[in-house]
């Protein structure tokens, strides 16, 4: 298979060729999916350097486990799950190393989101895409890793509650609480950012 063949081949073909040890086919898969894998790692980690390292690690693991890939899902989904698991492991390690903040503890116990007033105006209406991205970026950065991860898995990975629960090792009830808190907190943060900008 030539380089030209690789660039025109579809993912399942490239996977089959790469499973026979063709590194050039795997390189083409990396080139196609690297931005998505990095974006997922960045959404979860909120740190560029860590996201690059973890996405690189995901590709190395992907190569090592490529023979196990049977095609039950798309290659893109499969490699994304690898990077998500790596990010979760990393976040758990980091969590063990730092002291939990009082706010994070109150978030975990639940209830804070019940007192938040409903944001009646769409805080992102009329924003340019770049500006919206910046605001969401800042707001996501203010969420704890548990809340951000639930949000990322649900909104970006489009996982169902039970799948998120299995991935994160918690109950469906916890997933629902965390997701609700994350969304409400994000709405409030985005509304605050809008107010700050208009002053």
């Amino acid at each position, binding site marked *: 298979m030539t380089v030209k063949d690789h660039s025109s081949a579809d993912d399942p073909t490239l996977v089959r060729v790469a499973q026979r040890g063709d*590194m050039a086919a795997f*390189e083409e898969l*990396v*080139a196609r999916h*690297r*931005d*998505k894998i*990095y*974006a*997922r790692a*960045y*959404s979860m980690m909120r740190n*560029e350097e860590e996201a*690059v390292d973890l*996405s*690189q690690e995901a*590709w*190395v693991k992907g*190569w*090592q486990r490529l023979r196990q890939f049977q095609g039950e899902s798309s290659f893109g989904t499969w490699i994304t799950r690898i990077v998500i698991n790596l990010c979760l492991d990393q976040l758990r390690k980091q969590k063990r190393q730092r002291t939990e903040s009082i706010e994070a503890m109150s978030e975990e116990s*639940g*209830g804070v989101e*019940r007192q938040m007033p*409903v*944001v*009646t105006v*769409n*805080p*992102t209406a009329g924003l340019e*895409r*770049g500006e*919206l*991205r910046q605001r*969401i970026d800042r707001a996501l950065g203010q969420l704890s890793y548990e809340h951000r991860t639930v*949000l990322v898995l*649900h*909104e*970006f990975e489009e996982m*169902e*509650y039970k799948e998120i629960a299995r991935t994160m090792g918690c109950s469906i009830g916890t997933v*629902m*609480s965390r*997701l*609700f808190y994350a*969304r*409400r907190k*994000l*709405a409030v943060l*985005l509304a605050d950012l809008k107010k700050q900008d208009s002053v």
Partner: protein
Amino acid sequence: MDYDAQLRLQAFLDGELAEAEASEVTDWLARDREAAALLEELRHTCEALRGIEAGIRLPESREFFWSKVEREIQRLEAPAPKPAPVPLFALLRRCLVPATAVALLIIAGVVLTRPTGPSGLTPAAEIETALADSGAFTYRDYSAGTTLVWLSYPADNEVAEDDETDIVE
């Protein structure tokens, strides 16, 4: 609105409710403005997040990133380095040193456990004093199966007129 109702509203938005339950929530939303407002807020947040990852790009060129991935794969797949060939002398030494040590231990064990007499007695013989100041001595010769006991009578601290020697076989 209680917390369970809020979570039910969210599950409705996410399509996680059964049809019958979803229908109940639809009726409830038509009656409850507060619930409708909360649903709207949740919906806005979901919309804001949609497609937000699409603009994120890996901040490294294709070639550079791939070179890192490839190098790491090759590093992990490289066979473990073969051990250097061992010279003959070193090989002999490796075998002979433990063998010599074992042999020395065996010899030492034999020498130390072998009974020896202090004054030219046969190796399997020994003399012992039964009691302090009793004047009695026992001689045992295991190889001959003989035991001799010397009894001083009267004792050494008394004036002895004649000595008796009992032989026990």
